[in-house]
């Protein structure tokens, strides 16, 4: 018989406000095996923990039940307290009487009765608890960063500078991401390339960083500290080690009509190309969808002009397998497609552009070499209308848009409006807004400058229709302050499209068993207190993949993420979770159901000899769990038809005892 102590926490008024804690302690004292029961204001406090420790010593407790908040909050606190006085930490059980009881009930007698029942269930479980000891596993001291935008670059640099090797996997031919496409950055207006490219170069020169550009993650196996990842190095049809990035092939390539994705299709590139001048690695890539040689077998001009013999038309994708201790997701974002919002005529007129396209139209390396010309006739626009919140802040029923605020649009639109007025003072600039959201250091001041110093017309209202007619864009909009409808003949309309996570994020999340929200943003382990970790151990989040962020926020988060990765890689060994699955070989029928449902690949089958009753032996195929890989999710215990699989700490028997206690 266990000697059990029960500790009922008030949690200030969080629990005590709805649950009669004294009565709960009193009732639970009558349960079999309970030798001590009390209540206290804050059980998690120093003195609360001492109360538990003293009781363990004084009453010789062999089991502890704490009726308090969710075990996610303080299970660890109480386990440590127990361990410090020699009680096995897995003899401590939490009855969650806050989240599952006091917070959701209003009526005190009802809540009190339920708290008692939850306490009884925990007591029933403790009766069947046995001491458990956690195993240890080694840590591979190498990190993988998936995505080579500013988030991935910053995280990789910080980890590398702490002395750990890092691999960056980037799916496009160069690192740099969206920031490389930006012209200026708010609120200081420094040029994006000027501050980004030194970091790109640094990443390529840092001896601890290895860049796999034009590569993708194919498969992830393993667990925190011990991931094994297959990386597909896509065929560039160029030998990366030989190419000097001289660009001769790109000049001579006869296929010049390929939409240039770096300039969002507003100009063309050749079939063999280097995305932009400062690309890292500065290596050419052959686009097999357009290359004449790849499509027809004829041409081969690039191969003739290449001085170093770097062209290899027969190159195949290569698969690398690497081991990592930590994985950082930095897969970034894209603007949504605005074609579904064609009341703004984006699909109908080239002069209606997205903000990212406008960014390229302002950029010296863009399709117009930095002179603002409208796409249809290459003339200077004189009236420009900016539309905010295109696809952001939509109702859930509106399937075209997103429910969230994209966060970056107010500031970049202020930047676009300001820069336009600065470069072309003869241009009339209108910004239609719902709210101007500028929380951030020097952000509101920046927006006010656009209004006060640069004379941008900010209109509280929304554009409802854009009609291209006779070379103009007839804009119909509301001005809610003036309570009138405006009709503006504009030369360009710029749409602040909502942002969304990159499409590669969803399949990656499945590979990582990392959770996502309904918008496909990665979920944090805790929205406030663990914002850069995924709930999946060993997986970390950097940048827009976790939620909309501007560059300052992204870089801060990227460094925070690196700090967490460094903290993990600095450890030689990780203490595992002893609550893992184990199979009773005598009951196992070899059906493989468990192996199929295991998301971690922790279960293998092998043939074993068994002694049979009449002194014969038989060979049977049975399941075996690798406790270092098992995460204790319990999927196998549910799938097992013969009841052979069970989980330490959460055995079928323990759970049934809890259910029985609740249903009694």
């Amino acid at each position, binding site marked *: 018989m266990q000697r059990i102590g029960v500790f009922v926490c008030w949690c200030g008024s969080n629990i005590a406000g709805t649950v009669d804690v004294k009565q709960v302690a009193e009732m639970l004292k009558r349960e079999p095996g309970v030798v001590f029961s009390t209540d206290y204001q804050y059980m998690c406090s120093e003195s609360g923990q001492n109360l538990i420790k003293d009781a363990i010593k004084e009453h010789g407790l062999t089991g502890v039940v704490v009726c308090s908040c969710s075990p996610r909050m303080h299970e660890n606190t109480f386990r440590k307290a127990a361990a410090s006085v020699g009680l096995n930490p897995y003899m401590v059980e939490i009855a969650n009487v806050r989240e599952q009881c006091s917070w959701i009930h209003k009526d005190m007698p009802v809540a009190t009765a339920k708290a008692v029942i939850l306490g009884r269930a925990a007591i029933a479980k403790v009766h069947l608890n046995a001491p458990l000891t956690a195993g240890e596993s080694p840590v591979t001291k190498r990190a993988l960063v998936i995505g080579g935008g500013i988030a991935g670059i910053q995280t990789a640099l910080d980890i590398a500078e702490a002395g750990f090797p890092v691999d960056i996997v980037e799916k496009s031919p160069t690192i740099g991401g969206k920031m490389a496409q930006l012209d200026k950055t708010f609120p200081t207006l420094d040029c994006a390339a000027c501050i980004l490219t030194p970091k790109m170069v640094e990443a390529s020169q840092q001896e601890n960083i290895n860049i796999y550009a034009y590569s993708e993650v194919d498969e992830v196996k393993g667990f925190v500290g011990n991931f094994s990842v297959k990386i597909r190095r896509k065929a560039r049809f160029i030998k990366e080690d030989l190419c000097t990035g001289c660009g001769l092939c790109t000049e001579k390539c006869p296929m010049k009509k390929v939409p240039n994705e770096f300039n969002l299709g507003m100009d063309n590139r050749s079939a063999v190309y280097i995305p932009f001048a400062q690309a890292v690695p500065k290596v050419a890539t052959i686009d097999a969808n357009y290359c004449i040689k790849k499509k027809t077998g004829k041409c081969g001009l690039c191969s003739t002009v290449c001085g170093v013999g770097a062209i290899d038309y027969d190159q195949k994708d290569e698969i690398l397998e690497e081991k990592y201790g930590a994985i950082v997701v930095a897969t970034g974002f894209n603007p949504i497609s605005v*074609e*579904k*919002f*064609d*009341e703004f*005529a984006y*699909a*109908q007129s080239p002069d209606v552009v997205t903000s990212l396209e406008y960014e390229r139209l302002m950029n010296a390396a863009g399709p117009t070499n930095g002179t603002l010309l409208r796409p249809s006739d290459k003339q200077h626009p004189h009236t420009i209308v900016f539309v905010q919140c295109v696809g952001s802040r939509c109702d859930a029923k509106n399937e075209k848009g997103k429910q969230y605020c994209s966060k970056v649009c107010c500031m970049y639109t202020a930047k676009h409006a300001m820069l336009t007025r600065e470069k072309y003072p003869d241009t009339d600039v209108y910004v239609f807004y719902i709210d101007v959201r500028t929380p951030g250091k020097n952000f509101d001041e920046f927006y006010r400058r656009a209004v006060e110093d640069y004379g941008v017309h900010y209109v509280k209202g929304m554009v409802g*229709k*854009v*009609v*291209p*007619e*006779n070379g103009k864009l007839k804009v119909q909009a509301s001005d809610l302050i003036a309570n009138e409808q405006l009709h503006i003949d504009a030369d360009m309309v710029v749409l602040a499209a909502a942002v969304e996570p990159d499409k590669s994020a969803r399949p990656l999340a499945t590979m990582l068993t990392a959770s996502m929200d309904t918008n496909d943003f990665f979920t944090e382990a805790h929205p406030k207190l663990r914002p850069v970790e995924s709930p999946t151990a060993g997986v970390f989040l950097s940048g827009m993949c976790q939620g909309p962020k501007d560059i300052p926020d992204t870089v801060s988060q990227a460094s925070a993420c690196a700090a967490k990765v460094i903290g993990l890689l600095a450890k030689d060994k990780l203490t595992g979770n002893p609550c893992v699955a184990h199979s009773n070989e005598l009951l196992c029928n070899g059906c493989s159901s468990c192996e199929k449902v295991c998301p971690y690949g922790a279960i293998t089958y092998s043939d074993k000899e068994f002694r049979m009753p009449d002194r014969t032996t038989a060979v049977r195929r049975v399941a075996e769990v690798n406790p270092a890989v098992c995460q204790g999710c319990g999927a196998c215990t549910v799938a097992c038809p013969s009841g052979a699989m069970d989980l330490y700490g959460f055995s079928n028997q323990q759970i049934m005892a809890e259910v029985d206690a609740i249903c009694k």
Partner: protein
Amino acid sequence: MVYSYYPGCTLKTKAKDLDRYARASAAALGIELQELPDWQCCGGVYPMAKDEIATKLSSVRALLSAKEQGNDLVTMCSACHNVLKQVNHDMATDENIVTKVANYMKLDEPYRGETKVIHFLELLRDGVGFDELKKHVVKPLKGVKIAPYYGCLLLRPGKVMAFDDPENPAIMENFIKALGAEPVVYAMRNECCGGYATLEKKAIAEKKATAVMDNAAANGAQMMITACPLCLYNLTKNAQGGVPVKYFTEVLAEALGVKEEA
């Protein structure tokens, strides 16, 4: 291919052309349009009120009748299409309306929107197929720049009508291409012509219809087509501009070479 057919009142009177060219074209394409027996007027506009059913009953009768025939129900007039489709959506989604209607009409089994309502253009796109339609064209309308006018009723509300992208539709453009003509894409093709306002406030209809026609003309339209008698009226009677406006069935019959016999 056999379909139930709901022509609507206006197609029996002022918009006979919309109807007879449709019938001739359907016959040429091997489609049998069986006019519903004893159909009643749909009311012209969809009754939005959640608390009344009387204004929906004539539509329900037509929908029920098609259900009994076991056919999809084809509409021709944009307004009838809008009303029937929206009422059918109510019958499929609003339990309150379903019950009230069943009680009032003393139905043995409530009607729950089982009938599929399709506009003749949808039939051409999804039933016949524009590629197939192209094969039946004997007099391609070569070189004619035609501006399709959708108006409001075919497209909105987009989720209920599920006709095409309500902001950037393509069905009529593709229809025009299938006939060998050149579609004119213009932004006002899904803006209101003024509708029934012409009755009380003609100036409104004049302004709206003119803005639509101006935009079509500015984009090079030599002709406009529509599926709605009231749109046709507003564009021909109330718009300043003089671009000829025809029913889409008329150009269809012409291209199929059955206009004269219609």
